[in-house]
């Protein structure tokens, strides 16, 4: 029973992971801006699924609401407002890709190495659910200052975005 649950979790993880990686690669390689945004949706949804898999319901739901619900829409608006061509476009990338690839490989390699080196084969606890109540308790007691700071930041970002984007 426990064994089969673990198998199910692992299968789910690998399915999600492969989908995310493929979609992630497409985000940075596709020639169509709108497609890139749609692939990004896949990555974000995958991340939300991973959060659920890890037992973090609230984060998963927030991920769906904010990222997929709001941020992607914002991106699509941005694409339309900047009148990017809807079809394929050749000049979306810099011609010299090798240095960028090199940088990405170095960064990724270092991170992967250190993750494997440090965590090795540590298992995640089998049952690790956190409820929304716990999250709320924590935010409004221990992290109240950070919470207030973030709310000020949002206000500042709101005002900043309006000031920057409005026509003189």
């Amino acid at each position, binding site marked *: 029973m426990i064994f089969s649950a673990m198998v199910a979790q692992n299968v789910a993880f690998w399915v999600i992971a492969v989908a995310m990686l493929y979609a992630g690669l497409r985000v940075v390689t596709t020639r169509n801006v709108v497609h890139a945004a749609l692939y990004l949706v896949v990555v974000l949804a995958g991340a939300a699924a991973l*959060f659920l898999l890890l037992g973090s319901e609230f984060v998963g739901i927030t991920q769906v609401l904010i990222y997929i619900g709001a941020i992607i829409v914002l991106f699509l608006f941005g694409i339309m407002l900047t009148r990017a061509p809807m079809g394929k476009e050749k000049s979306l990338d810099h011609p010299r890709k090798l240095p960028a690839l090199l940088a990405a490989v170095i960064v990724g390699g270092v991170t992967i190495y250190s993750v*494997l080196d440090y965590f090795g084969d540590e298992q995640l606890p089998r049952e690790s659910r956190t409820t929304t109540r716990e999250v709320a308790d924590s935010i409004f007691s221990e992290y109240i200052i950070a919470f207030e700071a973030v709310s000020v930041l949002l206000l500042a970002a709101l005002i900043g975005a309006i000031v920057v984007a409005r026509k003189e």
Partner: protein
Amino acid sequence: MYVSQFGVLAAVLFAIGVYGILVRRNGILVLMSVELILNSVNINLVAFGALRDTIAGEVFALFVITVAAAEVGVGLAIVLLIYRNRRSVDLSEVDLMKG
């Protein structure tokens, strides 16, 4: 499940995001790549939180999501401004800082 599964997945996503930031010319696509990076960080936060059985990971993931929302708002506003001034969102044309 091993925690390193999540760690490695996040690392690969991070690297993809770095590649995207460096190689894309369209400002909006660069912002999307930034979102990839932020998401990979969130996966790490939540996974490590689960590993150490602490709520801090999730709380900070939530903060990261909030900050990301703010970042996209301001970032897109800047891209719009660039577009309005130059009729293009090609970042390789924006090189006023050239020495």
